[in-house]
């Protein structure tokens, strides 16, 4: 059925082209029927792309090697889960996923707010359509997943590094994040184009932005977990360009989620907010370009292709369009409200924004510098971890401090005296924790010690915020402690959901400081019966074994694990030799101590002819808090995103006659 797939993509391209041209004309001339027709074309394009996606899924599930894409990405012995995940493991499938998610999200966002789009923000349709048109163009004319060939007897298989459960979920999460950022961008630009710069675009896109940001953040963590297990160097984040590509839009979207509150509360930062929305979107395009173009060498990049120039051209056009539109609406956007005090919540948000954007820009410079250097000087250079670590500390530590200080500063202005009195307890706890850790020997890593001290400061502030809020609600006579606590969160979901997300960031900081500052590394060649000690652990090599897996020959070193003189279990580490792919992968051994949050991480680097094995043994303290932080992060986001019936009623009343659909967003 490749013809059906191709036809569906051509139909989608035609429909999206119609949505852009007719939608643009209808918006310009104020023609409602034409706009409805263009909107329907966008909906129909989603259906057409859905059919194309189903054709590809059917081809993958049936291992139809007459599809060039299926033959390049899978093999007969590849397990079904990975075979289906091959949808997004190659370039053409990834682009199709992008277009599917984009047309789906666009259809949902427009359908939920159809009256608003029709009456106030008609430009949403052609703007969203333009982004979709670019991807449809690539799929139809440059990188079709439906190219066919004479079917070979077997496929080339999947890169062994991709054969990991986390790699099934990681790319779709990132794409949901990247694509999700198109929605606030499209509504913001439509608001500018329609000269409707009130709060409606913010209200409509609030949850879309939060959802996209959550998917992106969780996707980054899934990628880190994959790298930790699959790449096998014992770390979790290596400032790889593709990792950075997802981190940059996430940082800018984080800045936006904070600064948009200042606009809602104080009607300030209106220009800044549209700049951030456009920046997050452009960086999400740039991220896709980095991952998919093959211009950079990365452990996460599995593609070499010719789509790079198209992407760069589109990013340049989108950037020029955004800048021109924002500049042309500056007078409409300028706010009369000024900052009342440098010690206020809005000022804290402003500082937070400056640090977040500065961090994103320094990462961006680190990513593009090698490309610029090669293009201008013809010299290939690489920007290493020390550069990123330096700026992560310089901008990251003040950000962590602000996470502790910001929540206790009042809006408008706060006196330094009342601020100091609120920070006495967190500061005391932080100093106490720092002192105890110093006495316990944590001074071996000054950065780790500072990280833990700051973490104690912020965590105490968060806990105290919950206590103060609950006590205040209870004092109003709202039942018992539990009812006051649940009422507090239910009536202030964004604030307390945000605090839970802050707690997640602190868990991540503790985990990162643990693995970065206090891990133990040992290595050595062991014959059967010999052992290697690392930290409290001793690993004894008891022999090796080989077995045939589903699609690979597996060799494993068997290890006894001793801790403080006591046998606590066994584990295996080894390698897989994949048949179809003719490649070998490291299969690390990980033994988790959930109580301590630490991992014993073993890499069997070399199996020698004499039966000995070269082992690398690493003890990673607190690393599991990084993964736990992902769950807490999702919980906090869910709390912040959960619809608030009271707020929806208020917004519905405000927008009555203006498009009550806004309240459903």
């Amino acid at each position, binding site marked *: *059925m490749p*013809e*059906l797939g191709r*036809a*569906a993509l051509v*139909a989608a391209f035609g*429909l999206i082209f*119609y949505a852009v041209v007719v939608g643009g004309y*209808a*918006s310009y001339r*104020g*023609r*409602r*029927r*034409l*706009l*409805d*027709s263009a909107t*329907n*074309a966008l*909906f*129909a394009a989603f*259906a*057409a792309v859905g*059919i194309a996606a189903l054709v590809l899924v059917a081809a993958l599930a049936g291992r139809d090697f007459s599809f060039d894409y299926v033959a390049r990405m899978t093999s007969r012995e590849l397990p079904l889960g990975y075979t289906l995940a091959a949808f997004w493991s190659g370039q053409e499938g990834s682009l199709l996923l992008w277009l599917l998610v984009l047309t789906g999200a666009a259809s949902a966002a427009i359908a939920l707010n159809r009256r608003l789009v*029709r*009456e*106030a923000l*008609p*430009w949403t349709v052609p703007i969203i359509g333009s982004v979709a048109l670019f991807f449809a163009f690539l799929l139809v004319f440059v990188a079709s997943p439906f190219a066919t060939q004479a079917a070979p007897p077997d496929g080339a298989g999947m890169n062994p590094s991709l054969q990991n459960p986390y790699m099934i979920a990681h790319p779709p999460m990132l794409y949901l994040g990247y694509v999700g950022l198109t929605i606030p961008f499209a509504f913001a630009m439509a608001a500018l184009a*329609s*000269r*409707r710069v*009130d*709060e*409606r675009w913010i209200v409509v896109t609030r949850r879309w932005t939060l959802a996209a940001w959550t998917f992106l953040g969780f996707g980054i963590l899934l990628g880190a977990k994959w790298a930790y297990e699959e790449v096998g160097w014992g770390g979790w984040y290596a400032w790889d360009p593709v990792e950075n590509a997802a981190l940059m839009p996430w940082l800018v979207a984080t800045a936006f989620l904070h600064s948009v509150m200042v606009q*809602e*509360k*104080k*009607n300030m930062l209106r220009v800044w907010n549209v700049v951030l929305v456009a920046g997050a979107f452009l960086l999400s395009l740039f991220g896709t370009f980095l991952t998919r173009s093959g211009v950079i060498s990365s452990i996460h990049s599995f593609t070499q292709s010719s789509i790079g120039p198209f992407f760069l051209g589109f990013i340049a056009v989108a950037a020029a369009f955004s800048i021109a539109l924002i500049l042309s609406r500056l007078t409409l956007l300028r706010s009369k409200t000024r900052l009342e005090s440098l010690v206020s919540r809005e000022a804290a948000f402003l500082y937070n924004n400056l640090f977040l954007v500065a961090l994103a820009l320094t990462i961006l410079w680190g990513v593009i510098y090698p490309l610029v250097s090669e293009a201008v000087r013809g010299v290939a250079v690489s920007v290493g971890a020390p550069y990123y670590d330096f700026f992560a500390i310089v901008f990251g530590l003040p950000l962590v401090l602000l996470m502790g200080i910001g929540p*206790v*500063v*009042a*809006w*408008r*202005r*706060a*006196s330094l005296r*009342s601020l100091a*009195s*609120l920070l006495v307890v967190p500061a005391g706890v932080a100093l106490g924790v720092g002192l105890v850790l110093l006495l316990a020997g944590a001074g071996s890593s000054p950065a780790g010690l500072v990280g833990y001290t700051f973490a104690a400061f912020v965590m105490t502030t968060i806990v105290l915020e919950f206590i*103060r*809020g609950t006590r*205040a609600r209870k*004092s109003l006579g709202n039942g018992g402690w539990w009812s006051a606590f649940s009422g507090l969160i239910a009536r202030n979901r964004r604030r307390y959901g945000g605090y839970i997300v802050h707690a997640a960031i602190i868990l991540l900081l503790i985990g990162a400081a643990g693995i970065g500052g206090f891990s133990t590394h040992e290595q050595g060649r062991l014959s059967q019966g010999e052992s290697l000690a690392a930290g409290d652990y001793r690993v004894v090599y008891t022999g090796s074994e080989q077995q045939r897996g589903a699609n690979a020959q597996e060799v494993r070193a068997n290890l006894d694990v001793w801790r403080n003189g006591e046998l606590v279990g066994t584990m295996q580490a080894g390698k897989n030799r994949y048949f179809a792919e003719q490649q070998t992968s490291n299969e690390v051994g990980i033994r988790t101590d959930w109580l301590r949050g630490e991992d014993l991480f073993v890499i069997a680097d070399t199996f020698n002819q004499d039966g000995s094995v070269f082992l690398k043994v690493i003890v990673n303290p607190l690393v599991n808090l990084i993964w736990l932080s992902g769950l807490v992060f999702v919980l906090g986001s869910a709390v912040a995103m959960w619809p608030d019936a009271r707020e929806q009623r*208020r917004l519905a009343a*405000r*927008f009555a*006659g*203006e498009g009550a659909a806004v309240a459903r967003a």
Partner: protein
Amino acid sequence: MEAVALALGALLAAACVVFVARPLLRQGREEAAGAPNPEEETRLRLLEERDRSLAALKELEFDHRTGKISDEDYRALIGPLRRAVGEALKALEHEDRQDREREEVDAAL
């Protein structure tokens, strides 16, 4: 198989054409889309100001109750905020009155 694919493709194309053309076949007067209406914009701005002032008042009360804001600062801030709420409500009332008058004039004509 190719024939089935072609038939499905043709069916898809026909369905898309009908779906996209449907709004164009609607009877009745064409309403303008997306043109800003100054009265509607003013009203929306006033509603946003009212909601913003009310939310700020609520926030100030909560911050005071949780000890984030001193009594002195509270006393200094509460007056202007209450005035802002009052002004926003008054401006909205004025706008409503003007709307009603306009409607009455329109009805009389």
